[in-house]
């Protein structure tokens, strides 16, 4: 049972890396600073390193959100199922929604289904998850806008070629920092959940830190997911929102990295996705004449609002199902349904494939580029 839960958690971590590569690398890929495959490889490695860097967020997830006394392994498994399904669905549509909210929503949903709303630490939820979710994109947008303005101002007398070349180098550096930051924040979430499961199982005492093997497994899973790359999300972030030049890319990534690292060290489990999106929009606002595609931004914002409740509903349903069947069998049934759904979503995605060959094709309004290019690739 515990093994099942840990595997599910690692699967979530994998989809998390998969979904979030875009946050770090989308702008570098979009401006051509890094080749798509190089970018995801670097990002994978740095996510691995970042996972070891800070444990503050794991602590928040493991003890700050729900009453650990009511958490059982079934509850954790059901919550994870909610998170994974939401991640996959948003990935199919190329929407960079928050994996963190998917996870937290799933866990909260299953806890509520299992033992009612009183087991959720609402105050912790609002102050450590919801408020940071509202503020972080705004702050990131502000920082990115200021940064973009400064970069263009300082470099305005440089030749176009030198500017492009120089900032591409800077962009690689800043993108690496985002990957590192992503590891410190997002890999932590899964560690937190596995720790929660271990506490529920009685393997660990309440309020324990994540054991080292948990850290290593999570780091590996998220790196692998990152390396395989969520090309669909990368495309939306890199091409869909704003047409990005290399100084803007650098400004956006520096802003994201700074905000994520700072918040991680305060233990706020904020969404790297929200921060990166805020930064990219900010960098569009900071440059005169740049155009932000607000309709794409609006679609994302809508998805963000729905992330917590939707994942919670899926989590609750999974918990109810597992509970009505009971025991290990209930969890197994949940996981079989989950695997079937995942397979179906993967199958659907083949119809409009986005990969490293066409990730930068001209934005034509949809997630996948015109089919002709796909065939050529």
């Amino acid at each position, binding site marked *: 049972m515990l093994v099942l839960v840990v595997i599910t958690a690692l699967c979530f971590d994998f989809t998390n890396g998969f979904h979030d590569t875009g946050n770090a690398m989308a702008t570098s890929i979009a401006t051509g600073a890094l080749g798509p495959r190089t970018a995801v490889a670097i990002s994978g490695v740095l996510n691995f390193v970042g996972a070891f*860097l*800070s*444990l*503050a967020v794991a602590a928040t997830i493991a003890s700050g959100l729900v009453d650990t006394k009511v958490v059982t392994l079934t509850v954790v498994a059901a919550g994870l199922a909610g998170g994974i399904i939401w991640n996959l669905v948003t990935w199919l549509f190329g929407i960079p929604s928050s994996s963190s909210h998917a996870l937290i929503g799933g866990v909260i949903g299953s806890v509520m289904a299992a033992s009612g709303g009183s087991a959720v630490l609402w*105050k912790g939820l*609002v*102050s450590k998850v919801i*408020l940071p979710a509202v*503020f972080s994109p705004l*702050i*990131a947008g*502000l*920082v*990115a806008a*200021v*940064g973009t303005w*400064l*970069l263009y101002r*300082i*470099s305005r*007398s*440089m*030749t*176009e*070629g*030198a*500017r*492009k*070349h*120089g*900032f591409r180098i*800077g962009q690689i*550096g*800043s993108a690496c*920092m985002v990957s*590192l930051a992503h590891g*410190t924040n997002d890999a932590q979430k899964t560690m937190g959940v596995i720790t929660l499961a271990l506490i529920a199982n009685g393997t660990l005492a309440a*309020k324990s*830190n994540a054991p080292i093997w948990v850290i290593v497994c999570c780091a590996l899973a998220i790196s692998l997911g990152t390396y395989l790359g969520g090309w669909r999300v990368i495309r939306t972030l890199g091409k869909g929102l704003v047409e990005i030049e290399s*100084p803007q890319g*650098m*400004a956006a990534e*520096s*802003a*994201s*990295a*700074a*905000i994520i*690292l*700072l*918040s*991680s*060290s*305060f233990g*706020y489990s904020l969404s790297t996705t929200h921060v990166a999106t805020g930064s990219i929009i900010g960098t569009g606002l900071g440059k005169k004449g740049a155009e932000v595609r607000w309709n794409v931004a609006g679609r994302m914002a809508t998805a963000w609002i729905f992330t917590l409740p939707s994942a919670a509903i899926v989590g609750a349903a999974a918990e109810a199902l597992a509970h009505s069947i009971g025991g290990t069998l209930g969890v197994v049934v949940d996981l079989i349904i989950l695997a079937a759904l995942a397979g179906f979503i993967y199958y659907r995605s083949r119809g409009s494939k986005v990969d490293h060959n066409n990730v930068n094709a001209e934005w034509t309004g949809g997630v996948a580029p015109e089919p002709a290019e796909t065939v050529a690739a």
Partner: protein
Amino acid sequence: MSWINLSALWKIVVFGLVAGAGLPALFAGGLYTLSWGPRTGKLATAGADGGEDSDALVGGNVLGMVLAAIAFLIVLAAIGWGIYEVYQIGHPAVKK
């Protein structure tokens, strides 16, 4: 615990601006002084430094290069220090 941790919010905004906008600006300043000199001009030819003439980064002015080196070093040092701080905060020595 209050609903909004104002002091943390304030710190994130200020440090975010310094690190997230200030450091790239410093990097940009370094690129700018690095480009001082004759070699990055519009008429520059593809020379010993190789590559296309249009995207040459080093202009050849010594003062410019020194200033750029200082700027880049400060940026790197700040990043290193930041990572160290995060590591320190993220690994509390003794947990109650």
